[in-house]
């Protein structure tokens, strides 16, 4: 038991070290430094919200468009970028494996943790900014539900990214396919539509996409009574579990074969 706690402490230490290294490498010591962590996604969300408002995009509801954009686009940012952070992530960091306590999983987890922190911070900050600027966003009706949906989405992103990353170490085509896959999945992800507005036949199909379920939960928490949500928590949890287990198994497999330079 004490050795289990001991190794958990070592892993915590290693992930913290990698996280700080990543922050410094990506955002530097200068200017506003790590603020970029959420300024970057914030700019994206602001831009999308502005575009949607300007074109009065059809999102099939009477919900305030800015709030709709913030919940939708933040949710995309949460899971979408994670794959980019894990695919091909081991090779440039091979020499780190000479430090015995650094394992491939730590490289992944530190990067994914940074993504979750960045996307979450941006979601919160952007919500507050819009909340102060307009009456469009009000305090979520059910904060706990927003957090639950957000957590499930984050878990989905982490599971998918670990699997995609670990498979990419063995098969390069994953890296090539990830880009087009992203572009195809983003419009389908539920960020720009609500399931309730779809024809009944399409609703069923849409809910096969795990992230649609996640976004619906987040929005139900946010808009509550004004929103008729469709989702299946059991399905989302099952998909997340399967992705995570397959991802960890594949990572375990490639870890045995990785040779530091």
């Amino acid at each position: 038991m004490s050795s289990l706690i001991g190794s958990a402490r070592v892993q915590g230490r290693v992930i913290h070290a990698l996280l700080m290294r990543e922050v410094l490498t990506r955002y530097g010591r200068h200017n506003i430094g790590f603020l970029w962590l959420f300024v970057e996604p914030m700019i994206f969300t602001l831009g999308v919200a502005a575009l949607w408002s300007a074109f009065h995009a059809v999102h099939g509801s009477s919900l305030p468009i800015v709030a709709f954009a913030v919940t939708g686009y933040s949710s995309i940012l949460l899971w979408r970028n994670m794959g980019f952070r894990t695919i091909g992530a081991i090779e440039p960091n091979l020499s780190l494996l000479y430090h015995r306590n650094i394992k491939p999983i730590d490289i992944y987890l530190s990067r994914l943790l940074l993504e979750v922190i960045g996307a979450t911070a941006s979601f919160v900050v952007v919500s507050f900014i819009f909340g102060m600027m307009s009456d469009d966003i009000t305090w979520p009706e059910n904060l706990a539900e927003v957090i639950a949906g957000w957590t499930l989405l984050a878990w989905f992103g982490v599971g998918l990214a670990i699997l995609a990353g670990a498979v990419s170490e063995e098969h390069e085509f994953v890296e090539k396919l990830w880009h087009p896959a992203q572009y195809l999945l983003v419009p389908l992800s539920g960020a720009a539509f609500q399931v309730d507005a779809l024809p009944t036949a399409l609703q069923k199909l849409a809910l096969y996409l795990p992230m649609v379920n996640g976004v619906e939960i987040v929005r139900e928490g946010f808009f509550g009574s004004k929103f008729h949500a469709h989702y299946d928590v059991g399905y989302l949890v099952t998909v997340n579990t399967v992705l995570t287990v397959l991802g960890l198994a594949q990572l375990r497999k490639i870890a045995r074969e990785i040779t530091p330079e």
Partner: protein
Amino acid sequence: MTPGPITLENITKIYRTRAGPHRVLDDVSLTIRPGDKIGVLGPNGAGKSTLVRIVSGAEEPTRGKVTRGMSISWPMGFVGGFQSSLTGYDNFKFICRVYGQDPKALYGFVQDFSELGHFLREPVRTYSSGMRARLAFAISMAIDFDCLIIDEVIAVGDKHFQEKSRTELLDKRRHKTMVIITHEMHFIRENCNLVYVVRGGELHRFEDIEEGIHFHESWFG
């Protein structure tokens, strides 16, 4: 905690190559007792580095069991782990975090030993290869390990730095366990109490250093 032995039991390592599986180590075993100075010899590509990486845990064996009773360094003076857009200091701090050490307590030594002065606050990409090597060596010396991995000894920096490094490593750390890969036989003669020769997937153990060196050199005819 007093250091205990490192043991490798029935280790097999197979690499996948285009020509099919390549068996680098075939069911080999070894024990490293605290205080041992082990010289690892063998022809190029025979698997010396593979063996040492399995000892240190940088790589996993295909089959077999490794137990480690002491802390093991990364290869002394290894420059590969630096993030070149970060400063020498930030890279040093990263290593300290990984090993749970207080950078404040060790910074004086690193500053002193690396002789890098204000360059420690500059990005590593601006360093010459000699400067990188000095930084790497200083950092690996700053952290206290039970067992030191030395792969191709101290050809870093200029003559002055090489001598300083050898003194620091071989005199001041005489009591440490060491695993040494080198092609310099005099280095093995002067420092090792045990020689392992890696050849043809097998591991040959020699308590008599001269015998081990002779066995190693006989292969070259």
